[in-house]
């Protein structure tokens, strides 16, 4: 499949180029532009990025494959990254994952048939204090998960609403404020 950047994307890439001393350094940013546009950076998109920036294809491929946040294949509209690393695991991360698998009818690493959700099992996202948690499409964290909360999240996403931003307090700060 062939992909093409829109005029708007190319303008954005030009302005990114101005921020860096050399083109090679813009690879990360331009991969994001591509992922925003196409929803993923598969082999063809990587080629497009390389051609646009006049960089070796191998270099762009190396960068894209280094970061898990770049999707190297077509993904669902919403990607649910469920943490099953230590803290989340202890607080029921696997229960959440299993619940999602059952609810969506797919296994971790798969995408629903309607192309709405992709489910991934991931390592620590640095939110151990609010375990178990998941991340929606490289964006919002959804914390202190319960099965009800997950169901609510899925409904919201299906209705085209964004997950709401949860303000998390630092536990230590609370202690200081109330001596």
């Amino acid at each position, binding site marked *: 499949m062939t992909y093409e950047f829109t005029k708007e994307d190319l303008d954005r890439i030009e302005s990114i180029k101005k921020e860096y001393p050399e083109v090679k350094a813009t690879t990360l940013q331009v991969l994001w532009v591509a992922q925003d546009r196409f929803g993923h950076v598969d*082999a063809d998109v990587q080629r497009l990025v390389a051609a646009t920036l006049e960089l*070796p*294809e191998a270099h762009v491929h190396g960068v894209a494959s280094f970061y898990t946040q770049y999707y190297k294949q077509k993904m669902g509209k919403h990607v649910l990254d469920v943490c099953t690393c230590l803290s989340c695991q202890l607080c029921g991360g696997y229960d959440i994952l299993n619940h999602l698998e059952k609810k969506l009818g797919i296994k971790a690493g798969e995408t629903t048939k309607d192309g709405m959700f992709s489910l991934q099992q991931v390592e620590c996202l640095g939110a151990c204090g609010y375990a178990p948690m998941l991340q929606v499409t490289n964006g919002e964290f959804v914390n202190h998960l319960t099965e009800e909360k997950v169901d609510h999240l899925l409904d919201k996403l299906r209705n085209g609403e964004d997950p709401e931003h949860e303000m998390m307090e630092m536990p230590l700060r609370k202690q200081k404020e109330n001596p």
Partner: protein
Amino acid sequence: MTMSEVFIDGKRYEFEGQPQLLQFILDLGLEVPFFCYHPSMTAPANCRQCMVKVGSPVKDRETGEYELDDEGNRVIRWFPKLQTSCNTVIADGMVVQTQESDELVQRAQKDTLEFILANHPLDCPICDQAGECPLQIQTYKYGPEGSRFEVKKVHKPKHVQLGPRVTLDAERCINCTRCVRFTDEISKSHQLTIVERGDKNYPVTAPGRSFDDPYSLNTVDICPVGALTSTDFRFKARVWEMNQTPSIDITNGKGCNIDLWTRDNLVLRITPRFHPEVNDYWMPDAGREAYQLFNENRVSHPAQKLESEQVSASWNHALETLAEQLEQTDRKDVLFIGSPHASVEENFALMQLANLTGAKTPVFTPHVEEGSGDGFLLSDDQAPNAEGCRLLGLEEVSPKQMQTKVSEARLIVALNDNLFGRGVLDATHAKNAFWVVFASNHTETTQMADLLIPITTAAEHAASYVNVDSRIQRTFPAKETKYSNRRLSMEMSEGRLDRFGTSFDNWVTEDHKIDCVPFWDFATQAGERLGLNLHLIDGRQIMDQIATMNPAFEGVSYVTMDEQGGIVLAKESMAKSK
């Protein structure tokens, strides 16, 4: 001003400029283990194996004098951590301790190796690199006795066909990035990258792309483990069973310095040999395929054409036929054809034979394919010795002129050059003459021969070639013929099997010796038969003759060539003599 000084393991050395510490140590003939460093490429210091302890002397800021301790020794301020010597620039007064004198360095190198080996499969018994593997050697020298990693090793792709000539075993890779840097900095094809991260990473091409770089096999040479292997040579032979002979690439005009690896008189692989002014550490992939020229499709035993079919003939018969033909043909109708594909010595022998029989000076047609060169190690000139033919004074003719000359001749004596195969001649030009062809391999040209005489290749004789930059370099005999003997020939190197092998061993047979002689041998015999004053013994003696007779080759001998890595011949001296 005094020279800058550096103390390595307690010994004082002087230096100039800003040398890198690892290269400086290696240049002294000392050793620090390393994997990712390569003298012709940048040093990313990512293998972490070349750790050393480095310190600077403390200077009094006011007087500029070195501070001394109670015993009168300089006070050394050690760097807080061990340094990778490959990218440390030496400074005046620097004190360095390597694994030879420091236990911490020893420990660091040992532990680094333990990490490098954590996911290395240790399949040395079936690995092609075994025997010439830096990882294997350095593990023996500096590595740990065992490993504390008892968990399952990470699995990665195996036998990945990266390109037409290179196969990857990602599990063996230690991610030194030498191959990636080679394609970025040397061949500039930028075809390789490291993908994934952490313990899952390995080098590969972009998706759907083939590693078809014309220099791709150099990555196999510089790979410090068995991760990148030659698809062609894979599983063919163990390195310690082969014999290594220095030689020259004869597949194009650049004259890359190479090594021929032989076993049982077969050339099994060709690798580049370092020459700073010709090819550095590299050679094109095309040159490596020349091993087939040395082994396969060889002309073995003379043949004569009887009623359009070539039948085997004895050496005496061949000699007698050539002599008779030379005697009975009018001198004006004899055409000697030299060859840019043959050595200086062979062309000289042909010239001598032509001169002494009273024929015209031999002609030759250069083998140039415009646009096939790349300005690096591939030249437009497809022959190794066109310049040598010119300097010897052979008459250079265009393909057109060659066609006319061939059509007019009654007897043609042609040296190893596939004139029919490379489009200079076709069958219509060859009708009138009796063709005597000296050749090493069967080609379109040998099919035309009325008398076919097998001669040695660059792998079987010592002979010299003048490259496109007028540098004369020479080969060494690597393979025995039916008439040469490795033990008796003082010029041939012997591998383990060559020296100790018996017919009860694997890989020791008589099968691969070709029934051929050096061209000058046959020319001398022909000279004797014809009563000519022609004495050509071997390449060494012929070169001495050429040096006294031809001003372009003045001062050239095998000894000086060997000492100086080839000699650049001045084109001017030739012009003067003309």
